């Protein structure tokens, strides 16, 4: 199938869905709301989130519930897009769900590890969406190993099974690392089945993401986790990355943070490391924001490719994250003037 035939309809659909994104004005208005209920009412009456809130009384909404509703809309929209595709392309779009499922799973595993109640996680939106895991089994887990056992027979099993193997203690850290890595392997395996041109743009876009995440990982590994260079390297992502693997290896083997900063300064990503107290706090946000602009440019230069759908999921993810931040900002009474620091979207620019 030619790319025009494959993408003409879906990309138009995506454009129409993207037109429903919150505007900067919506952001500002939301930040002015006094309570979560007010915010829910605003979303219901003034934005496209009215769809998921239609049958819900904003007075009944609390933070966790609102978050899950917002995520639900994200899932519905990605689902809608996947219906425009067939075969390997549809499978690829479905693979994107794995990322969000893994995100929720890690939160659940953390709760299991801390022995907290799993009930609040029962309305997790993405659990099972990609893996088709047995939710009953998952939510009755007492230990990490029960969580892992729930995934027997799913796509994640191949990656999780070694955690139970050979009496190595299965711990939260490994669980999280293994799942994160599995996403990129699953993603790559699926996208190799797409057309060459699509693979090229995906590698370009995902490569930037991989670079950013690798830099963040190595930086944190050196600074906080004190891991050996070999381990650091083994947990990096190699996925169309612009930095070649030799350079990444060099980064991992930096003897000190200073040496790491020197090396990082040679890349196009030096903005991540301002070497002041803001580095750690804002790194995540800087990464997201950079990703947003880079994706926009890749998308603009490659019309009629899979990148439009891929980028859409990331944009929605950014909006959902911002929205959740806004809800928290309201909930914990942080002054609106400070809010910008916690948001990915830059409110001082146009939408």
């Amino acid at each position, binding site marked *: 199938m030619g790319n025009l035939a494959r993408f003409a309809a879906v990309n138009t659909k995506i454009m129409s869905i993207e037109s429903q994104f919150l505007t900067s004005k919506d952001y500002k208005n939301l930040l002015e709301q006094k309570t979560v209920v007010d915010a829910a009412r605003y979303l219901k009456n003034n934005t496209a989130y009215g769809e998921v809130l239609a049958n819900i009384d904003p007075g009944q909404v609390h933070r966790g519930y609102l978050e899950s509703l917002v995520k639900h809309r994200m899932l519905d929209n990605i689902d809608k897009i996947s219906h425009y595709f067939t075969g390997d392309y549809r499978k690829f779009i479905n693979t994107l769900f794995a990322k969000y499922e893994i995100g929720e799973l890690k939160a659940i595993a953390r709760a299991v590890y801390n022995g907290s109640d799993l009930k609040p996680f029962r309305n997790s939106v993405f659990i099972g969406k990609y893996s088709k895991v047995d939710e009953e089994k998952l939510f009755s887990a007492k230990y990490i190993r029960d969580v892992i056992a729930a995934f027997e027979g799913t796509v994640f099993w*191949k990656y999780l099974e*070694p955690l139970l193997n050979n009496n*190595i203690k299965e711990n939260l850290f490994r669980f999280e690392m293994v799942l994160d*890595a599995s996403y990129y392997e699953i993603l790559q395996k699926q996208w190799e089945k797409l057309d060459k041109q699509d693979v090229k743009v995906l590698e370009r876009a995902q490569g930037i993401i991989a670079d950013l995440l690798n830099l963040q990982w190595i930086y944190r590994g050196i600074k906080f986790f004190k891991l*050996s260079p070999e381990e650091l390297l*083994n947990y990096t992502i*190699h996925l169309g990355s612009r930095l070649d693997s030799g350079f990444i*290896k060099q980064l991992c083997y930096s003897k000190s943070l200073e040496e790491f900063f020197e090396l990082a300064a040679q890349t196009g990503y030096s903005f991540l490391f301002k070497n002041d107290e803001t580095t750690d706090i804002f790194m995540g946000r800087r990464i997201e924001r950079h990703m947003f602009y880079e994706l926009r440019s890749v998308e603009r230069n490659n019309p009629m490719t899979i990148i439009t759908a891929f980028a859409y999921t990331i944009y929605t993810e950014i909006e959902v994250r911002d929205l959740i931040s806004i809800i928290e900002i309201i909930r914990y009474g942080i002054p609106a003037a400070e809010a910008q620091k916690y948001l990915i979207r830059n409110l001082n620019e146009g939408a």
Partner: protein
Amino acid sequence: MSVEKMKVICVIGSNNDIDRAAQMVVLNGSIHMLNAMSELNNNCLELKASEDNINALQELVDVKPYVSNADFTEDEKIIKSFHEVLDMKQEIVTSYIDPEFDYRGIIEDLKKSYEHVKNTVESIGKLTEEIRLKQIQISNLQYARSDGLDIGSLLKMKHFDFEMMTLTREKYKKLKLNYENIPAVVIHLGVVDDMDVIGVMTPTEFRADAERILTSLNVMKLDIPKGYAGNTENVMKTLGIEINHAKKEIEELKKTAGASENQYRELIRKAYTMLMLERKIEYVKAEMALGKKLFFMFGFIPDGQVEQFKQQLKDSLKDEVIVLTEAVENRKYGHSPPTKLINNILFKPFETLVMMYGIPNYNEKDPTPFFAITYMLLFGAMFGDVGQGFIILIGGLLLKYMMKNDSFGGILSSLGISSIFFGLLYGSVFGNEDIIPHLLISPMENINTMLISAVVLGILLINISYIYSLINLYKRHDLEEGLFGREGLTGFLFFWTIVLLIGDSVLKVFGIPTAVYIVILGALLLIMVVKQPLAHLLQGRKELYEESAGDYYLEAGFGVVETILSVVSNIVSFIRVGAFALNHVGLYIAFATMAEMVSSRAVGVLILILGNILIIGLEGLVVFIQGLRLEYYELFSKYYSGYGIPYKPVQLYGYED
């Protein structure tokens, strides 16, 4: 020949009777459960405030869903291992079901008996596990063997540890990238299921370092046997021998257990039957709602079963019970009633083909009879042949009685009979038209007649489907579609005007000028375009459109084009019935000509036989599909929605979901 009438049944009884009531539901086997909580929330339960009902009314204030805490895993395990040790098949024996049964008691009995065979079961379990492990070891060793590694001596090394493991291809790349920094020798042994298999030799001194790095590569260690001498080949052989020993041992154990078999046989069957019943009871209870003293249960029940079930409940429940029934027509919310089709033996098999398209809605007329008759007609007309039809008939009967495939066997045999009937009309036996005289027509000599009659047949069938559609729309009280829609009255008139227009211009029967037809068609199209505002006006509703007027007219505009195209193409589509009847003869002529061309008579006969097989197989299939196509696209799309829910009563056999 219709959709079975359903009633909603509501049972309110004392909590003491909850198990009994659930059991009645399972044994009765005709109740399609509804979730009581959602029923109570959505549909007001109409209870008259009388003495009898006062308790129930009070309870309604505070009802909770039933929470099951039944856990059958242990019972299941015992029953299953019993079956395995005694080599018995799991089967439900209905005669063991006793309404007065005590499930726990039976399981206790069983557990006591289990003590006697416990040792045997455990030994068998241990041996089976041993066999499984050794089989895995053998398959792991295979990788080492193909690389010529000598496992015996590798494992004997004093200052080196040898291990085998798998890891994903991505991680293997990382290992290679950083090989110089890893304190171990790595040998690549192969690839399975997209995973790399490696052998790793580590100096014991660096063991901890290597372990840490390998762990971060998320390796999966493979089990290899320790303590065996000799090369890999020999170790594998030894393992094989050990497995055989263990297998023999299991046989022995089973034999000794078998001696006491008869003692337990009945108990085990009973326990299994009860377990299955108990599981179904839990399923029923899960749909109930509980008050402090009373339970509430809802379900759909076929009209004819209501009285019997009521009586059963009243007879066997100890305490007071309230049974309410309600006509499904009064339901405003919740699930629409399930569809149970009632058809006679002749039409029943065709339900499968109808269901392939969809299950009729509860309020819809069951299309199966019409489908069955027309489908047989279409198939026969396209594939009319006494001999080949006979073979299809035989095939169908074989399927039905030998292989117990009722639906498909039934369909094939009906189609075979229809084919024979048309074969007589066409005078065709195994493609040959000279053996018997045709009773009605010989297709090849009357090509035009065949094609025209096909179209006439089509017009007739389309007419009937319009009538079906009108009935369905009337039942649904759909004014907009019924009067002005494409499948409603206006569409029907439009269809007839087109038929008359074509008929008149070809045959000149009435001699009405074409312009008149065009005007009528235009007027009808206009009505269809403005169907929604028109219907809303008639109903006296304020807003004329359900969406914006612009969107509505855009859609309606496309609708016009589609209507014109589809009416014409629907009619023309039926030409294929005639065409395939001709095609059938044509295909035979091709084979007959080939048979005549060869010199040997034997080969000629062989070609004819092969040709007939090909015609039955290939053309039979094509005609089968083309017939379905006509039914689904030309007819079903007019009058049949197929959005129904299948009727799935709780029964001891079978599965609800």
